[in-house]
């Protein structure tokens, strides 16, 4: 429904956009025993690493191939082999994501061919019967030039490359049906759940509980709930400390259903369902009552199982929260700036309680933007958000920590959401999806407004009493 407008500016001013390699790296950070490797200069990974560390408050095992001026010109093929060998020797990862950058794309590195050659050179021996060899790691190459698309495009490209390159373990044993499941033992309980970048660790946890309550066994890809959720492990590891395991990926062909949650995962869902013949159900987002009800309806129909008591209670709480917060949020003028999927998710939820979206900015175009239930989305930067929020008289600005400076200049309230959040804790709990996650977002938004109004009242009162004192003493 929304009209997509271009900012028309030929400059990045207070950029909202993040690069493709960053989004792609996040997909690999949601896999277990994995490392994402940026095929570029060392700054490519050190800047990205610093940003991710500040957002998650976690060490992040992001690596780089360290392209130099010379390798950029003469070709980085030999260096790539040495780097891949070294990562395997030092970090022993099960999965490596090799992500190109602006440099390696301009210099024209053919990573598909190089990886093919590398596998042939290193792992041909594993095909020889009787030879002792550790299982080779899964190495996935993804083309993610900085100068095309953005973070969401990188996420989508990495997820697609991953689901298209997983070797399925067709000869392995069939999945056990989950215990106590009424869903027939002959059916396939595994559900492949491909998610987009708007889901945080706590979102994944809630949706996993919801799906499991129907006797199903969801496998989330990627699964940031076990890697970047903020947990203290028993010892330090040079790779990711949790996430979707390689063994789980090998068995994704058992899934009878592929669910995609988040528009950014939609194309990967089509790819995976196409490879395995599973049914495909896709959601742009799962924010708000109607969206989550849609998923619950599908799961009820597929399994013949009634929703759990927990799900019913959560739904009733969200319904109540919608009513409670609409008093505060109804008619409030809101400005938002986020990645496409999160923008539509958060905006839809705020629209559901009657908020008025006066400015919405996405860093990059995406098909999901057209479905937003308001008038217009601008493809632009935070400078566009600021100009339009000012013009539209926004009272609440929603977005990353960078957006906080915008709200400070405008003197309005700020709801932290999206990426990066580097000035407060708890990014992995900043939910947007499911019954509980939607409720948390709504209460956070309403509380932000109430806090802001309270502070303004305090200031007004202070100014008022000061002027009375002045008058009294003057009299």
């Amino acid at each position, binding site marked *: 429904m929304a009209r997509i407008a271009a900012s028309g500016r030929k400059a*990045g*001013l*207070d*950029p909202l956009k993040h690069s493709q390699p960053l989004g792609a790296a996040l997909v690999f950070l949601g896999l277990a025993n994995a490392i994402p490797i940026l095929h570029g*200069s060392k700054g490519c990974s050190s800047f990205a690493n610093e940003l991710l560390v500040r957002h998650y408050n976690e*060490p992040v095992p992001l690596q780089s191939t360290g392209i130099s001026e010379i390798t950029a010109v003469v070709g980085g093929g030999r260096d790539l082999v*040495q780097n891949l060998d*070294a990562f395997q020797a030092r970090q022993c990862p099960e999965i490596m994501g090799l992500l190109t950058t602006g440099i390696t794309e301009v210099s024209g590195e053919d990573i598909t061919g190089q990886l093919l050659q590398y596998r042939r050179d290193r792992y041909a021996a594993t095909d020889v019967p009787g030879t002792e060899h550790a299982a080779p790691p899964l190495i996935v190459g993804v083309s993610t030039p900085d100068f095309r698309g953005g973070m969401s495009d990188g996420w989508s490209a990495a997820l697609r490359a991953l689901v298209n390159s997983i070797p399925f373990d067709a000869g392995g044993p069939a999945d056990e049906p989950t215990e106590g499941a009424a869903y027939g033992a002959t059916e396939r309980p595994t559900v492949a759940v491909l998610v987009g970048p708007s889901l945080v660790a706590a979102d994944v946890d809630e949706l996993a509980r919801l799906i499991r309550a129907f006797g199903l066994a969801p496998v989330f890809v990627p699964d940031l709930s076990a890697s970047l959720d903020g947990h203290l492990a028993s010892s330090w590891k040079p790779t990711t400390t949790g996430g979707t395991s390689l063994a789980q990926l090998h068995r994704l062909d058992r899934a009878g259903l592929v669910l995609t949650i988040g528009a950014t995962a939609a194309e990967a869902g089509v790819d995976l369902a196409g490879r395995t013949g599973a049914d495909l159900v896709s959601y742009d987002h799962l924010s708000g009552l109607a969206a989550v009800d849609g998923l619950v309806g599908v799961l009820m129909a597929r399994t013949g199982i009634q929703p759990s008591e927990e799900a019913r209670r959560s739904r009733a709480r969200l319904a109540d929260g919608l009513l409670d917060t609409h008093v505060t949020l109804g008619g409030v003028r809101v400005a938002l700036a986020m990645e496409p999927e999160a923008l539509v998710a958060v905006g839809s939820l705020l629209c559901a309680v009657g908020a008025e979206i006066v400015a919405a900015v996405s860093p990059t175009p995406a098909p999901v933007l057209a479905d937003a239930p308001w008038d217009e989305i601008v493809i632009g930067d935070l400078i566009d958000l600021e100009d339009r929020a000012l013009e539209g008289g926004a009272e609440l600005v929603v977005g990353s920590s960078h957006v906080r400076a915008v709200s400070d200049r405008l003197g309005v309230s700020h709801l932290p959401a999206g990426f990066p959040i580097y000035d407060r804790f708890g990014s992995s709990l900043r939910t947007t999806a499911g019954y509980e996650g939607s409720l948390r977002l709504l209460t956070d938004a309403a509380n932000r407004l109430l806090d802001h109004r309270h502070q303004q009242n305090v200031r007004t009162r202070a100014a008022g009493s000061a002027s009375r004192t002045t008058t009294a003493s003057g009299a």
Partner: protein
Amino acid sequence: MVNPDSLRTFTESACDRGDTKSVKKRDSGRWKPRPGEVLGGCTFDGAISTLVPIADSAHIVHGPIGCAGNSWGSRGILTSAHDLYRRGFTSDLSEQDIVLGAGRRLFATIAEVVGRHRPPAVFVYETCVTAMVGDDLDAVCLAAAVHTGVPVIPVHGAGFLGTRNLGARIAGTVLLERVIGTVEPDDVTDLDVTLIGGFNLAGELWEVLPILARLGLRVRACISGDARYADVAAAHRSRATMVVCSPALLGLALGMEERHGIPWFEGSFYGVAATSDALRGFARLLGGAELAQRTEELIAAEQTAVRPKLASYRERLAGKRAILYTDEARSWSLIAALADLGVQVVAAGTSRSSDDAIRRIHEVLGPDARIIDETDPSNFLRIADETAADVLIAGGRNMYTALKGRLPFLDINQDRHVPYSGYRGAVELGHQLDRAISNPVWAHVRAGAPWDIAAPA
């Protein structure tokens, strides 16, 4: 494109000379990373980090979104007035720009930024992609300067040239060649001085300024922390320069001496002794028995005031063992500050120490000091284990490695919010170290979960 500024950076006379370097370091101009171990910032990072503290200027990153998008607005430096340096400006190149040439887009970006913000100057940073595409950055900057009437200064420090340190050196060369000496101040005094380095982390400069002011010294420019473009451009009229923990910018100090006759010295504001030495350094260069006497009086008063406070922390911290891992040359200057507190440094290192810095660490810690050369984070925890260290003192990037290993941590780099410089800073360092090491949280997180503790037989 070969740029004359970059070439000058390699020929500057304060550079470590090839014949005094170890074989390993000799080829640092032809930088090549070890496979599988590529950490630390790039040349672009070093260049922009050095210049961004010129806070009233616009800093435009000429490249695709990766370079600016992941880094803007994140630096822990503070300024007293302007916030333009916190804004993110980039030409944000698309595929089309790379094929057809990025000059027009850069020109439009400069024009838009100047139109909106009217900065006194614009710095434009080349990145890997724009260096490879081969646009004539200098020509575009010149045209934009003519068009806008504002100095537009190109910085040729593409990331893949090498280390962060090289970027800082290139930035120093740019200041020397294109900025310093372009503004004539009308308020020159005999006690104007310039500070080089420092970055005004957490307002460290503001700890130092009042002390210098009490001696009658005026900091004409701090390169670079809380700096104004016009002050940096007028730095050639200062009477003395102090290089604060920044070997990468020694070339700048030397250049200011060669071109403008300004004497300089190297020092630090970390620790009581270093701060006192720095004040004496200024007194020596500026001359006069009267200044020297005032300086000694001030030092005596400050040291007397700070002694009981330091003693109380020394009591609590004596015998504690620290691992020090910091950017550039802070290591050797912090060791002395830690010694003031009775803290022993059991291992030290930096990701980009010059041989000179390593020599100095050895001078202070003795020949057996353990030098950390590898930057793999797992090494910190291993070395902490082997040396029975009580605390890791390092940059924020390493914080979570320490915390995951249940090792107390003190942040010494960009993200920190507490100044450790000057006399009060030396006490503050003690306070923060004590707080980190003796925090009750360690007892809580080191205790096992109920299911990890064996049940009594």
